[in-house]
């Protein structure tokens, strides 16, 4: 998207250089905290506690990570790192996949069928956009208690797939499918299931990928809700566990392992975003409309 270098609005070489400078600075500021934690995870606790932290990775990487995975983290909070990662992965995947499944189904129903109360249903779902979970924590919590879902995976997942962002996006996308495509499919003999499987789904893949990334991150980074709905340490997500490690830190806290845990709490979503960057950016910018 750049103009020819001699177009009247293109930046001169000097301007470009300055731009690069600022971008590099921006990237440093943006990346530094994450880099810092990564470095810290490769040193001993003593090195960490005596500032300044060296700027290059230390020699303890293998040792730290091995220790963390083989029980080091359990010593801090009573739950193994594997369990924490598993919990968080289950929650993130559950939310992402669950949301995609029910949103596609709802959007499909609203766009490709006619039935009484159709628009009422749409508005019912649409309104949930307006209220994030943070404004209804108490009563939702009570519902979880009543349903016996405290300290369970469904308890962690279900309230968070209630909102309508994905439904809206899919509805918008489905509405861009030309009428004639559906008509041709009907004339060819396709019923609702075949049409969805053979035609709509393949055409939706880009949108599904984008929503997957966004929802996976949403699920992985949840804080308030997991805090409330889990009492047992066994069901903590890695984010909550990390916070507990810091709050209950004392003189014996193995900060190097805390740093390892931090890195592992950050890494998976970053990987997902970076690897699926193209779809993610497209989906994000289009959710705006």
């Amino acid at each position: 998207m750049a103009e020819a270098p001699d177009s009247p609005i293109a930046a001169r070489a000097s301007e470009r250089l300055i731009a690069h400078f600022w971008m590099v600075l921006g990237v440093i500021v943006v990346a530094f905290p994450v880099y810092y934690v990564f470095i810290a995870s490769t040193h001993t606790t003593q090195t960490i506690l005596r500032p300044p932290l060296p700027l290059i990775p230390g020699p303890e990487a293998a040792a730290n990570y091995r220790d963390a995975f083989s029980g080091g983290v359990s010593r801090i909070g009573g739950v193994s790192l594997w369990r924490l990662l598993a919990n968080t992965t289950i929650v993130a995947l559950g939310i992402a996949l669950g949301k995609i499944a029910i949103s596609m189904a709802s959007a499909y129903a609203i766009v490709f069928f006619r039935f009484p109360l159709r628009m009422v249903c749409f508005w019912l779902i649409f309104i949930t956009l307006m209220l994030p979970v943070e404004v209804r924590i108490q009563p939702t919590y009570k519902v979880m208690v009543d349903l016996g879902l405290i300290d369970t995976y469904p308890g962690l997942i279900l309230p968070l797939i209630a909102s309508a962002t994905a439904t809206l996006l899919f509805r918008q996308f489905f509405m861009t499918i030309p009428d004639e495509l559906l008509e041709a499919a009907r004339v060819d003999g396709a019923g609702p299931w075949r049409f969805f499987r053979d035609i709509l789904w393949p055409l939706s893949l880009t949108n599904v990928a984008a929503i997957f990334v966004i929802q996976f991150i949403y699920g992985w980074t949840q804080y308030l809700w997991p805090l409330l709905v889990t009492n047992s340490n066994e069901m903590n997500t890695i984010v909550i566990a990390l916070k507990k490690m810091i709050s209950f830190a004392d003189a014996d806290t193995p900060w190097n392992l805390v740093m390892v845990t931090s890195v592992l709490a950050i890494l998976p979503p970053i990987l997902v975003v970076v690897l699926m960057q193209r779809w993610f950016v497209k989906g994000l910018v289009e959710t705006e409309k």
Partner: protein
Amino acid sequence: MRRTVFPHRLLPWLLLAPQLAITLIFFYWPAAQAFRQSMLKEDPFGLSSTFVGLANFRKVLSDPNYLNSVQVTAVFSASVAFLAMSIALFLAVQAEKIIRGKGFYRTLMIWPYAVAPAIAGMLWLFMFNPSFGTLARPLRVMGINWNPLLNADHAMILIIAAATWKQISYNFLFFVAGLQAIPRSLLEAAAIDGASRRHSFWTITFPLLAPTTFFLLVVNTVYALFDTFGIIHAVTGGGPGKATETLVYKVYNDGFVNLIMGESAAQSVILMVIVIALTAFQFRFIERRVHYG
């Protein structure tokens, strides 16, 4: 708008059932309960409740702690929104000037989006920890008695920094997209008319970015109001001395920690009203943009 449909009558209901069920159970029912509870007052033993109408609301709105929260939230949101958006806009403008390397920078700028707000807070706490934070040392060397655990202003600065840091990437992505959507021909016409780059930025680019800017303003405000709970809980716990207790944090604190149900519910309802107003504003504005766009 003609729309061909399938003739089935029952199937759409089956397809909608899961989302409707979840929405009813985990959204409408609790929301209704929140409304109900906001108008009840529990007795000291938590055994019964009486209907008190709007008394909870009156109490909440005249509570100095609540007003403190409002102020804290206002300062926090405004600072985060303003900083996160200006820095992101600046960087986006710089990125636009670059010919090669845009994708590289974008990849590197995306990270913070994937980081949990709570962890963002923790990261900044690590860096600026009064005892072992690497970046806390230069501050002490400069003579600042840096202590976010005891100094209210320092605590505020820290959480603003963490919240802003995280939001820059999101804003950056949208501003880059917004800038790319501006037709080159407009800027070229301005250049031919003799406008300097700075002038054409403020008179052409910036106004054309208005829809994106407004959109991000709402998103950033909602983010600052709600998503930052994790940052505050992880870093300052609302302190020191309620200096960083935002509205959403207070709802949590009163409702779950101190168990003052009625008032916490009333606060939830007030927050609901604010969010609805913001979302309504956003959709009306986006709708307007569709007409003009």
